[in-house]
């Protein structure tokens, strides 16, 4: 007996189910992928590429800055603080730029910069004071020259020398 024309079981539903599952899987996978991408992006934003970028220069800058600050507080010697101060500013600035580029910590560079600037400012202040004192001494000397007091002082000194020589000769006789 011929069997009735049985329709073959349609695979439409199954394929639909399959595609649905695939779609869900893909969707989930995509979500995971984007999440992973997001987290890696976040990580790259927070953790520096090179955490020790500019560290050496920062240390050198801070040491020179402290030395400059200490020297600048000593009267008369303070003008020499300009040398370590300026070098400290340069090194700290370079270290700051390097740390900025790498996203590393820049606290030491900032501290070095502050110390160096304080040292340079005080050194500059002492330099101005010394220049003022020098110009005032020069003024006083010029006034003395103009008034003729220096000439009379020289004459009296020469007279004193002559007197001293005369005293020596009389003593030797």
């Amino acid at each position, binding site marked *: 007996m011929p069997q009735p024309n049985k329709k073959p079981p349609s695979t439409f539903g199954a394929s639909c189910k399959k595609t649905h599952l695939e779609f869900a899987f893909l969707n989930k996978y995509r979500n995971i992928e984007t999440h992973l991408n997001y987290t890696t992006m976040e990580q790259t934003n927070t953790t520096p590429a090179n955490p020790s970028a500019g560290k050496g220069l920062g*240390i050198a800058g801070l040491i020179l800055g402290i030395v400059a600050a200490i020297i600048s*507080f000593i009267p008369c010697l303070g003008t020499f603080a300009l040398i370590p101060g300026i070098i400290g500013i340069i090194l700290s600035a370079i270290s700051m730029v390097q740390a900025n580029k790498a996203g590393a910590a820049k606290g030491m560079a900032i501290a070095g910069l502050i110390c160096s600037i304080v040292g340079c400012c005080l050194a500059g202040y002492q330099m101005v004071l010394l220049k003022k004192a020098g110009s005032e001494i020069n003024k006083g000397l010029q006034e003395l020259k103009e008034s003729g007091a220096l000439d009379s002082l020289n004459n009296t000194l020469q007279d004193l020398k002559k007197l001293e020589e005369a005293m020596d000769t009389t003593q030797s006789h």
Partner: protein
Amino acid sequence: MRNTPAHVIISLVFFIGIGMGFAYSYFFYPDDHPVDCMVKQITGKNCPSCGFTRSFSLYTRGEWDAGKTLNPLSWTVFLFFVTQLILRLAVLTHYITVRKILPQKVMLADAIISILFFLYAFLPVIKTL
């Protein structure tokens, strides 16, 4: 050296520097210093910091009163350097024995104490200008 914490390197540098300064003060006699004051050479008068090296020389030999007579302001400055030498040595010994970075609070306290003592010691000196 590359992995050494920054504060340890800074402490080492200052320990060596201050130590060398004290050694110089100890080995050169007060009347035989090779460095002369520029202001004294020009004007013939003492400047506010004149007598610092000589008094440091005397302090390192234990002659406190004689050092104070040369320059009374030098005593606090000398004490500042002595405390710095002790603090730097403490930081170095802590790192050598424990091999750990100092806690943030301790480092902050070290910095604040150093700055305050520095101002206490050096402000009277700069005020003489």
